[in-house]
């Protein structure tokens, strides 16, 4: 068993996914199967092999720091679930007694 149901519940919390019990049960079995299959990367990846995170060896790509047109406030807020004035309105982020 590579992964337990309790671990999946913890990962779901870290991932900000409010999953139901059925989903957790279903996922735990599937993730265990997937992890069993992908663990074979360990068979060939020796210590002296450098990792590749990206196909292009690029670092610090720069462009001129020019003023360019950007979205106006109405455009930026147009798709927001809730707004207040020229701001995004978000749910409570502090506990009431904080």
């Amino acid at each position, binding site marked *: 068993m590579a*992964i337990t149901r309790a*671990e*999946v519940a913890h*990962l*779901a*919390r*870290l*991932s*900000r*996914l*409010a*999953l*139901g019990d059925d*989903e957790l049960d279903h*996922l735990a079995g*599937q*993730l265990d*199967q*997937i*992890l069993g*299959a*992908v*663990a*074979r*990367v*360990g*068979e*060939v*990846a*020796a210590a002296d*092999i*450098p*990792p*590749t*995170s*990206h*196909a*292009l060896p*690029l670092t610090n*790509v720069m*462009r001129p720091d020019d003023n360019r047109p950007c*979205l106006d406030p109405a*455009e*930026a807020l*147009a*798709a*927001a*679930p*809730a707004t207040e004035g020229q701001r*995004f309105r*978000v*749910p*409570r*982020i502090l*506990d009431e007694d904080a």
Partner: protein
Amino acid sequence: MADLTRLGAADLAALIAAGEASAVEVTQAHLDRVDAVDESVHAFLHVDHDGALAAAGDVDAQRSRGEPLGPLAGVPLALKDVLTQHGVPTTCGSRILDGWRPPYDATVVSRLRAAGVVILGKTNMDEFAMGSSTEHSAFGPTRNPWDLERAPGGSGGGSAAAVAAHFAPLAIGTDTGGSIRQPAALTGTVGVKPTYGGVSRYGLVACASSLDQAGPCARSVLDAALLHEVIAGHDPMDATSIDAPVPPVVAAARAGDVRDLRVGVVRELSGEGYHPGVEQRFHEAVELLKELGAQVHEVSCPHFPYGLAAYYLILPSEVSSNLARFDAMRYGLRVDDDGTTSAEEVMARTRAAGFGPEVKRRVILGTYALSSGYYDAYYGQAQKVRTLISRDFAAAFEQVDVLVSPTAPTTAFRLGERVDDPMAMYLNDVCTIPTNLAGNAAMSLPCGLSPDDGLPVGLQVMAPALADDRLYRVGAALEAAYIDAWGNPLTEEVPQL
């Protein structure tokens, strides 16, 4: 006039340029076909009738003023719903973006518009491009025009089906592990994943940023090349865009010559799990390449069999990070915001309600692979395999100019057959993934119908980074030989629907 929807992009552009058909007529003919038939295929999530006719009208006005037209001006195109188009619904196949209208155009879209290409609408896909069948779309699957009970492949099944069903001669797909090529194979069409960095990712909603690449879908190699040339090229808005000239893909597609080209058959991409009919058509394609004058060798890429495992660690890791942006705060879905629920809880409930099962599976898998204590064994090791696969390609390309394999181990499978069996679904991508990991270019083109089931088989051609033109050279040579043998392009055999 002949049925305009049966013509390819190059022919339509020539008719429009010569004034023998207007762009509006061409666009209307395609919209009429979509309206009449797409109910059974479900290639489109959104059809932009007004926007498409307006864009076509602009091309006709340009022509009547005597202004020069681009090589694809007035030609209709289907756009995968993962690219932003200003004011047009863009969902990525997800409930979490249902109803979102982006405030800007992707660079691919700006370039299409500048070229006078007419965007008909947005095509269906697996949610956030995760899947190989379109069954993970929140809005229902696309059906394969060859057999409506079968999947068109994925994630870009909508784009491939739109082209195969003659809804549009061109489409844009995106390919992270095969999402252009595998649907092309399963629908008998042409699909190209350009070199990573060859086409701008600005406005392409990210799945796995180090792998994602947009590219052309078409019914012919030349049409794909014409579209490739329109969308490719350096873009300062994408820091991973390559600042180099676009490979001469159109010239290569017009030349279509493989004499003395060195072709490598990848030994590891065959055998167990491959349908006999797929292998038979593949071997015939290799024989045909020899007849056309190519020098064919067998080549070994010993680490390719580990590509699938590496990919299904690297991709979920990047996904778990990229999809953190869907936080219910600035755009998209928000649920249970009743004034008492905390932001964190609203976020978690929104993401649970807005994402489908495959996205949840991969977000959690990626979170696991990146977590302290497991990082070295999973993500770290996968990155090393990525190095080994790049080295396999480099060694192979010292011996040969291009590599070939089947595009997918099987033909189109039945809807429902693999949808809740993730590993069976992932095996679809076994041939296409190595190219994404290394950042090279690859094409799928049809090489016949399988004798097992009468469904299309795809041949994959792989080239080194920035040698995309070689794909078109091989593709065009084979396509011409097939049309000689078959009398018609394969897509002429698609049922009328």
